[in-house]
């Protein structure tokens, strides 16, 4: 965590006057008999950065996976970019075009080169001409500082490089919202920083972001708000300063002490 801690807080780009980018209204979800999301309500403004933390099994990954419907919720409403998530396939396609996602295990397509990983969706989903898609891909690969790897296959890259490719791949769709599901948890310590720096750069550009992470330094630097989840519900919610300096609940206090001891 060390170095990112000392950075100044990235100026917020949240626009509270505009309609919210994401609205969750009393969302409930069960895996069989297991109640994994309990009455979760949350609004994320355009340009806002929200960090979701909590012990494992608290439902934080499930929560963000509901936002682009990799998981379906059973009760309540989820509205993304003014479109409500229902069984309507057209609405779902529209939302997935606007919401980029970065996974813990990268999930790059191993049989395609880095460049093809980045251009596939723009070409086939956005119907972009190939040359234009490649220019765009190179632009974002430069932003994540690995343009020289464009012709390689993902398996030839380090974990940190792969995760940066995954970020570039998501950005090539020009999403309005980015979801990060524990993007640094599968990385070796020396590679965490390069990925976090990329994400901080993204935050500085005003991207709406929801990030599940245990990197408290990143949360302090970037987050407008921190959401603490435990056992499927939002326990506490506030600015990083409030949350980390003055936790109100015992559950958050316990969680913070465990996280800090772990590092």
């Amino acid at each position: 965590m060390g170095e990112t801690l000392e950075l100044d807080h990235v100026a917020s780009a949240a626009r509270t006057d505009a309609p919210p980018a994401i609205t969750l209204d009393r969302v409930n979800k069960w895996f069989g008999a297991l109640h994994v999301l309990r009455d979760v309500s949350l609004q994320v403004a355009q340009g806002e950065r929200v960090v979701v933390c909590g012990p494992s099994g608290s439902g934080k990954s499930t929560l963000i996976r509901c936002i682009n419907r990799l998981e379906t919720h059973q009760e309540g409403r989820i509205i993304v970019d003014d479109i409500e998530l229902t069984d309507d396939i057209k609405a779902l396609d529209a939302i997935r075009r606007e919401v980029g996602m970065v996974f813990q295990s990268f999930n790059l397509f191993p049989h395609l080169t880095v460049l093809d990983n980045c251009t596939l969706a723009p070409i086939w989903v956005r119907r972009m001409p190939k040359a234009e898609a490649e220019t765009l891909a190179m632009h974002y690969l430069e932003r994540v500082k690995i343009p020289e790897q464009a012709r390689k296959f993902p398996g030839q890259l380090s974990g940190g490089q792969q995760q940066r490719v995954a970020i570039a791949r998501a950005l090539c769709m020009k999403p309005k919202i980015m979801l990060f599901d524990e993007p640094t948890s599968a990385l070796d310590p020396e590679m965490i920083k390069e990925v976090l720096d990329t994400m901080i750069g993204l935050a500085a550009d005003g991207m709406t972001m929801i990030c599940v992470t245990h990197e408290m330094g990143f949360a302090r630097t970037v987050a407008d708000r921190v959401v603490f989840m435990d056992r499927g519900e939002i326990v506490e919610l506030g600015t990083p300063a409030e949350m980390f300096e003055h936790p109100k609940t015992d559950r958050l206090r316990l969680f913070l002490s465990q996280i800090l001891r772990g590092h």
Partner: protein
Amino acid sequence: MSDITLNPAVAAVPDAAPRSAPMAQIGLVGWLRRNLFSSWLSTAVTLALAYLLIRWAVGFVEWGIVNAIWVVPNNQTQACRDLAGAGACWAVITEKHRFILFGTYPFEQHWRPALVCVLFVGLYVISAMRRFWRWELALIWVATLTVIGVLMWGGVFGLPYVPQERWGGLPITLILATFGLAFAFPLAILVALGRRSKLPAIKVLCILYVELIRGVPLISLLFMASVMFPLFLPEGMNIDKLLRAQIAIILFAGAYLAEVVRGGLQALPRGQYEAADALGLSYWQKTGFIILPQALRLVIPPLVNTFIGFFKDTSLVLIIGIFDLLTAGKTAIIEPAWQGFGVEVYITIGAIYFVFCFAMSKYSQGLEADLNRHRRR
């Protein structure tokens, strides 16, 4: 601080040429030592096996070449019989090769099935080259198969008409195998995808198909196609026997290949599906660009295994009286003059099957290495 002491001689010449490993451990000598003569026991086994191998090879050369008879005049096979097994009677092949290859196809028209075989091989070679893997290849297939149909049936362009009952030999084997696998493979992919469908009707249908077809022997399916199926047809309607056998083979191979393909689909991590979904790819885009290219690469070995198996299983059509290569060979030695020379005929037919199957096997190895380049680091 450190136990490492520098050798001053080496330190003075830092770029001393790297020494190669001792001769006794690398190269041919080293290989022989390691693998064949590593101990007294292994030396003994090596020598014993080498003796047997050489004896057998010498015996085969004597039988197959030195003492063999290549031609006999006018079916006078007495010379062959006089050998009493000491030499091969390749005269049976010399005499009967046209019948073995082309069955009862009219003799003076044999150039037509011969050309068909050449066209098939050409089609295989072109299809095997990745540089031709684009949609035009489908056109080439349709065109070639049309030409093959015209050549076999005739009746146009001044070619005399030859009814299907008179076709036989290698073209039949190639037709059954090529059409069988060309139709069974796409069918298998659809069924494998269908078995994982979220729609219950499609899923149940695909499971039923696979389990029903897999549950019966191919022979019984061929019997059904040849004997039972016509009973259900209206009076006067008749579907070609070869076509019925062909459909039976397609359905049977399809069920087996579907399970192979499904194995590949199962092996893909869920993250690949999720990443494709998250990017907004549609079901068919996801399947075509992400899932199938990876799943099929994973199952090349069992896929080719099944292909080779079905290439040879086409010979089972002999039980419903279709003249494939094996049946033609069997029939060739029914004639009294040539009875008793089955070994020569079966060796020849085996060699033909081997050439095709071995080519498939070698090709798949190359393809596998080529397509899995991305897994190398």
